[in-house]
């Protein structure tokens, strides 16, 4: 029977929650990575290894690797540095595919490893992209700035990669990082922008597994959908309680079904009115429904960050999200009902799910 494994990156190390295909009973183990803040952890389906991007205030950034679901760990940052003296404050985002691991860092840049995380080299710094002249400016780097906040590798084409530069743009490369194209047309921005093609605050980018042309994104100002692989975007915020949020997950088998967690847009950035809810569309954003069965409905000021939600690929898909106050909630019935499967973890940065045969 398949094992369902959640990788939960927290402010104080990586934790793992494990169940079977039924996803009813969960066991937890950790903390791994010696309590370093883990910004993102992923499972490499090809090699079966776990990679965790962690950055210690004392010992710097490193990528941790476990080849055996957490039994043993190594870490390396060999080559993970800017040669021109730019400061690397953290490693923010990971993508493992095609025998390669990509890591997004702050200040913005992407490094790669082709030897199972033993050594790293520059993949792309996105040089010359509009807006790049200002993204090392400290005034553009608020506390917690992630730099490259997300990387998505195409499942079929190893040269095709998407990356988000936090607060600026979604970029696409089809030539393995040699050139990039901003993919923001149709997005809304409620602030002045210096460049026509960039200046958009893309929080979360999700591709549908059921249709490569279908994409969703949670933006700083609104939800958006693309039907042409990111060439153009259409806003689909209407019907949601707020336009702001970070976390999102697409249905693995239905291109029109998509989940998002709206948050209050001020500095609090918690679920509206202290009532926890996931919102779902089944019609590509024409309408939204509130899913709250099993979620706390009083005094629940929960925040969920951009890597904090994930979905599995079972026939009846499950969804998972982790909060900034250390709870993990799970649904094994396509979001219809939820249960709290961890209650007292450190602040959660990321939740990724793996199905291990």
């Amino acid at each position, binding site marked *: 029977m398949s094992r369902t494994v959640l990788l939960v990156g927290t402010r104080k190390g990586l934790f793992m929650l494990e169940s079977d295909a039924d996803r009813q009973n969960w066991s937890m183990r950790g903390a791994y990575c010696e309590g370093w803040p883990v910004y993102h952890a992923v499972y490499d389906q090809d090699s079966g290894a776990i990679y965790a991007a962690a950055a210690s205030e004392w*010992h710097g950034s490193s990528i941790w690797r476990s080849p055996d679901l957490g039994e043993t760990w190594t870490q390396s*940052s060999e080559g993970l540095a*800017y040669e021109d003296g730019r400061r690397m404050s953290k490693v923010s985002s990971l993508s493992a595919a095609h025998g390669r691991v990509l890591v997004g860092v702050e200040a913005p840049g992407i490094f790669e490893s082709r030897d199972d995380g033993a050594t790293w080299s520059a993949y792309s710094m996105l040089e010359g992209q509009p807006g790049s002249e200002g993204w090392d400016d400290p005034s553009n780097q608020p506390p917690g700035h992630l730099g490259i906040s997300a990387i998505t590798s195409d499942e079929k084409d190893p040269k095709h990669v998407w990356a988000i530069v936090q607060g600026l743009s979604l970029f696409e490369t089809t030539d393995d990082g040699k050139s990039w194209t901003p993919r923001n047309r149709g997005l809304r921005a409620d602030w002045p922008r210096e460049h026509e093609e960039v200046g958009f605050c893309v929080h979360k980018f999700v591709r549908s597994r059921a249709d490569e042309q279908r994409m969703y994104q949670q933006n700083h100002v609104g939800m958006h959908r693309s039907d042409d692989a990111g060439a153009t975007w259409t806003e689909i915020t209407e019907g949601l309680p707020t336009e702001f949020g970070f976390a999102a997950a697409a249905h693995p088998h239905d291109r029109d079904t998509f989940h998002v967690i709206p948050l209050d847009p001020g500095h609090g950035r918690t679920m509206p009115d202290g009532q926890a809810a996931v919102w779902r569309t089944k019609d590509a954003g024409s309408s939204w429904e509130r899913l709250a069965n099993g979620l706390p409905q009083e005094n629940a000021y929960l925040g969920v960050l951009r890597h904090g939600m994930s979905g599995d690929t079972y026939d009846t898909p499950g969804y998972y999200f982790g909060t900034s106050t250390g709870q993990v909630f799970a649904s094994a019935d396509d979001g219809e009902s939820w249960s709290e499967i961890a209650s007292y973890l450190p602040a959660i940065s990321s939740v990724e799910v793996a199905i291990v045969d």
Partner: protein
Amino acid sequence: MADVHLPTTLMPLFAGLPRRLDLEAATVDDAIGRLDAKWPGLRDRLCDPSGGHIRMHIHVYVDRERAGLDTPLEPRSRVDVIAAISGG
């Protein structure tokens, strides 16, 4: 031989790394280099790889005086590498 004391936060990262050890080294940088040769990657945990200096929250003392990478070591120097007390 310098008497080198390392922070406990390093022990889990490098198999067999002791809390204290004797090292023949001319400077702090030399001592860290010798540690890195035996435990590859250790330099990156103590020094900023892009700046060539000791990390902000790592403090090194030689004979109880705050030191930098170029601080010389005497044959009987005591070297304390401290993970600064900060955070929560």
